[in-house]
């Protein structure tokens, strides 16, 4: 039952986007977000939109997956849109009835915000859809490694993240088993009053916590037996090599950014 949950759903593939260096992908995503938020009008966004659609197509991931990432936020989007349409008062008036006033300005801003948020979600999803969680963790660790000079525990955090990721499926399976075992003794987990269900959560959480502590202890011993000694002097099997492709992708992104700003200024 719980096994259908995946974190930051990753779709394995071999597209151009998949094959980009993850560090570059993170930096590019950040630039992309910057581009969306510094664009001052709809024409800027249109340029950004072209970029986004091109990237989505290049990833060869079915468009409906991106739609799925936007869907949960639809109610919020519609609410924002309606509020803006009703409350913003500037420009030509399209419609007026009692106290409801819909103006060009309101419509403009609504559309602008919706497009911006949708592009934002789709673009960020592109990152998690084309990069596995462990690759992302690795890339973040490498990007942050200069912080080690400031005594920031980069390696330790990355180690924690990667061990956590490794154990997510194991913990999900264990939770499933514990739930089945308690249900077999009559515990009501899906039904019954809130109080009953809360009490029965204890029957799942306590064993889970205890087993996690034991697991951690055994894992630590196993790691020490394999000469783990913190981040000092560690080499890596996973190699990240920046290639021409990555620099080109970065350059293209920057060009689009520049282009969007220029176009925005021209069409003020």
């Amino acid at each position, binding site marked *: 039952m719980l096994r259908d949950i995946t974190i930051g759903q990753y779709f394995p593939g071999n597209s151009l986007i998949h094959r980009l260096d993850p560090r570059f992908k993170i930096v590019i995503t950040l630039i992309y977000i910057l581009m969306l938020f510094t664009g001052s009008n709809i024409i800027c966004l249109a340029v950004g939109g072209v970029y986004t659609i091109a990237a989505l197509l290049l990833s060869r991931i079915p468009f409906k997956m991106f739609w799925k990432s936007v869907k949960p936020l639809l109610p919020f989007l519609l609410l924002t849109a309606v509020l803006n349409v009703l409350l913003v008062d500037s420009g030509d008036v399209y419609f007026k009835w009692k106290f409801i006033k819909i103006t060009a300005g309101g419509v403009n801003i609504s559309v602008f915000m919706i497009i911006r948020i949708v592009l934002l979600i789709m673009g960020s999803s592109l990152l998690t859809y084309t990069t596995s969680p462990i690759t992302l963790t690795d890339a973040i660790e490498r990007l942050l490694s200069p912080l080690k000079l400031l005594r920031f525990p980069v390696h330790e955090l990355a180690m924690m993240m990667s061990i956590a990721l490794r154990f997510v499926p194991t913990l999900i399976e*264990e939770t499933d*088993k*514990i739930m*089945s*075992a*308690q*249900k*077999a*003794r*009559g*515990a*009501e987990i899906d039904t019954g009053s809130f109080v009953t269900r809360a009490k029965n959560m*204890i*029957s*799942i959480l*306590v*064993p889970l916590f*205890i*087993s996690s502590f034991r697991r951690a202890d055994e894992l630590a011993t196993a790691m020490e037996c394999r000469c783990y000694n913190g981040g000092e002097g560690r080499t890596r099997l996973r190699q990240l090599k920046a290639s021409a492709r990555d620099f080109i992708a970065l350059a293209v992104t920057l060009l689009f950014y520049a282009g969007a700003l220029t176009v925005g200024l021209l069409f003020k």
Partner: protein
Amino acid sequence: MAILETRQLTYTYSIGSPFEKTAVDHVDLKIEEGEMVGVMGHTGSGKSTLIQHFNGLLRPTSGTVLLDGKDIWADKKSIRDVRFQVGLVFQYPEYQIFEETVFKDIAFGPRNMGLDEQEIKRRVLETAHDIGLKEELLKRSPFELSGGQKRRVAIAGVMAMEPKVLILDEPTAGLDPAGRDKIISHIKEYHKRMKNTILIVSHSMEDIAGFADKILVMNKAKLFCYDDTEKVFGRAAEISEIGLDVPQITKVFMELKRQGLDFGKEVYTVPYARDLLLKHLRGKAGAEDC
């Protein structure tokens, strides 16, 4: 009447996806009350999925499960009651213990059944005795106990519901020979006292030979056979072929038969082998040479 029955029981998961798999394939089964059944099958044969249908943890994709002649899914709301009548102990059950005292943990099942305090106490004390837990352990924290003791607490927790059918999935997994023998003998005692039906899933035919009246074998999601222990051991060669391990002593007598020394009986325990041989060695007539 059969206490537990399945009719064309089928369970398929991930229907419609590329991972679709039939774990249990049209199984017809009739288990009589009072029997002690050994359940065998290689990993992936469907035995674990099958037993989870008996207490309603899984719902059949098609087919029916009947307890005491009644379809357990006829009234969805009363499925919880089925779980009190068909008790299921999972593998490594000690990992599900959570209460502060041994007493409370064993009492969890009976408490969920809505029984009064006196009845709960009676059941906890009797089950603890049945499974070999000393009374002074009842007030201690289960987490202070040894692995073997914790396992007994967990098994007692299900036994205390006094189910008509008790199913144990590899109750001796990970235990050493002494621990294993103790648990099996406690379960046998419990069976004698309660006169209920017991199913034990095990990978060891040697262990099963020591307690089972009947053996249920699953193979690749289908029911391979459900028959008297002796008859199943008579098919030892077939059992070997589907990937299950036959006891050493059975292999010896299979080989003797192949070499022309047929004792006419299925041998699957050492005491029986000894008695059979002694009878032939000391008896009037010699061996039955073919």
